[in-house]
């Protein structure tokens, strides 16, 4: 197969990148390991779009026009809900089931060639990629590559220099499950007190202290989110399959323990059940590219703007270096920061672009730009960049 653009990964960034490139007239293939696009927002059941809107203000104002706004509009139509303010930030509650379907529609309408159930396993400048699907290899030649793998998988395969925070500083992962059958109001604070009592009495594992709940927006359905330490079998390493496997196992074990405890102890939970597990735990941070520019936490905090900026970052630094809840650091006056084009281009490589949570930035800036709304924006930005003259087979 020969295409203008190969997009690695179909999460929020890869989706936006592939759709934008294809709408610009480039033949585009998007390779995704799961059977649906959306990444964290579908496979990992993360149910809030963060980073879509400017911070503060009396109403939610989109920070990045175009595809981020279009996806938000389609989600609002699907759920019947709109943006809500949580503290100083506006977020859009989203439903993973709707997101998977919306992603299908946008990809289909835009003419993107979608290859689910496959992983890029080798990459050579030029560009040639090998995909693996159920033991069979396929080759793709592409004029440009957009790495939206989240883990900078392309950088690892090319063995080019990447960047990565120390294991004890990486943002901790989350395990999100669907729960149904709860009757009555969701009493979040009471549930927190109940979990502490369960841990104190030895009925619940200590990791249960990372658990919290939110209504899904659908009648009778809630999401349970468990923030994990990632240190279940040693240092946290989100690119080690043994570590990732322990995350999945622990996520299910702890969530199940909490559910069984609530069924016995908590009013309204007697008939509750876990209705779905995520396809995978949500990893917030791993490898990052070293690009032609590096966005820093100071840039985000000071609301720095760049002549060559291609998207805006409008989420505070949401640091989750422990599984004891987030620490938020807001930009001065809630200002938006620019994301320079150079942070979306790999250093020293022709026609290799990056979007999503593994763009070229430091650990602190990553705590802002990793959210799905910003990933839509960097995805759209690289989609536009590859469509500029001089890129692809012309």
């Amino acid at each position, binding site marked *: 197969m020969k295409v203008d653009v190969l997009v690695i990964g179909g999460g929020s960034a890869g989706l936006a990148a592939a759709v934008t490139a294809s709408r610009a007239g480039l033949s585009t293939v998007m390779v995704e390991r799961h059977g649906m696009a959306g990444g964290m927002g579908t496979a990992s059941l993360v149910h809030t779009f963060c980073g879509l809107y400017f911070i503060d203000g009396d109403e939610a104002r989109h920070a990045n026009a175009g595809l981020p706004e279009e996806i938000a509009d389609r989600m609002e139509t699907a759920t019947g809900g709109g943006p809500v303010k949580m*503290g100083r930030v506006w977020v859009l509650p989203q439903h993973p089931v709707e997101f998977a379907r919306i992603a299908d529609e946008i990809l289909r309408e835009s003419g993107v060639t979608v290859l689910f159930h496959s992983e890029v396993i080798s990459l050579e400048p030029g560009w040639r990629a090998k995909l693996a699907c159920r033991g069979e290899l396929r080759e793709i030649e592409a004029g440009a590559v957009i790495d939206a793998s989240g883990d900078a998988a392309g950088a690892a395969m090319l063995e080019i220099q990447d960047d990565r925070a120390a294991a004890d500083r990486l943002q901790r992962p989350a395990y999100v499950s669907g729960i149904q059958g709860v009757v009555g109001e969701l009493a*979040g*604070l*009471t*549930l*927190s*007190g*109940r*979990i*502490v*009592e369960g841990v*104190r009495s030895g009925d619940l594992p200590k990791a249960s*202290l*990372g658990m*919290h*709940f939110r209504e899904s927006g659908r009648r009778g359905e809630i999401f349970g989110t468990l*923030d994990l330490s990632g240190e279940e079998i040693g240092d946290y390493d989100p690119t080690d399959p043994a570590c990732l496997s322990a995350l999945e196992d622990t996520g299910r074990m702890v969530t199940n323990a909490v559910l069984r405890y609530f069924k016995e102890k908590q009013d309204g939970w007697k008939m509750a059940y876990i209705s779905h597990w995520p396809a995978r735990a949500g990893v917030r941070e791993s490898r990052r590219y070293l690009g032609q520019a590096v966005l820093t936490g100071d840039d985000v905090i000071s609301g720095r703007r760049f002549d060559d900026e291609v998207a805006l970052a409008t989420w505070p630094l949401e640091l989750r270096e422990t599984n*004891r*809840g987030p*620490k*938020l650091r807001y930009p001065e006056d809630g200002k938006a920061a620019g994301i320079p084009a150079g942070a979306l281009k790999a250093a020293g490589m022709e026609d290799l672009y990056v979007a999503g949570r593994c763009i070229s930035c430091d650990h602190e800036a990553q705590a802002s730009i990793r959210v799905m709304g910003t990933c839509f924006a960097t995805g759209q930005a690289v989609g536009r960049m590859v469509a500029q003259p001089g890129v692809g087979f012309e």
Partner: protein
Amino acid sequence: MDGCCGQMTVACDPDDVLKMLREEGILELADGCGVEVDLFEAGLDSMAVMQLIVVIEERFGVALGVVDASREALGTPVAMAATINARR
């Protein structure tokens, strides 16, 4: 007698609560905020409440539970100090 913080016999006052919240990094409080600050407005949520109850047990030797996990009981440093004192 729990000697970990030496406060077992001394009543917890709202300034102790502010100190605890700042030292433990449970939530970011503005520099000048007083003992009547609305902690839920300042970002205290169900997740942070769990950590808070654990920390209160460590620091004050007081085991809060389900009945104390409410806005009324924990919503300001004044209310939280009263809750802690009442459970001794």
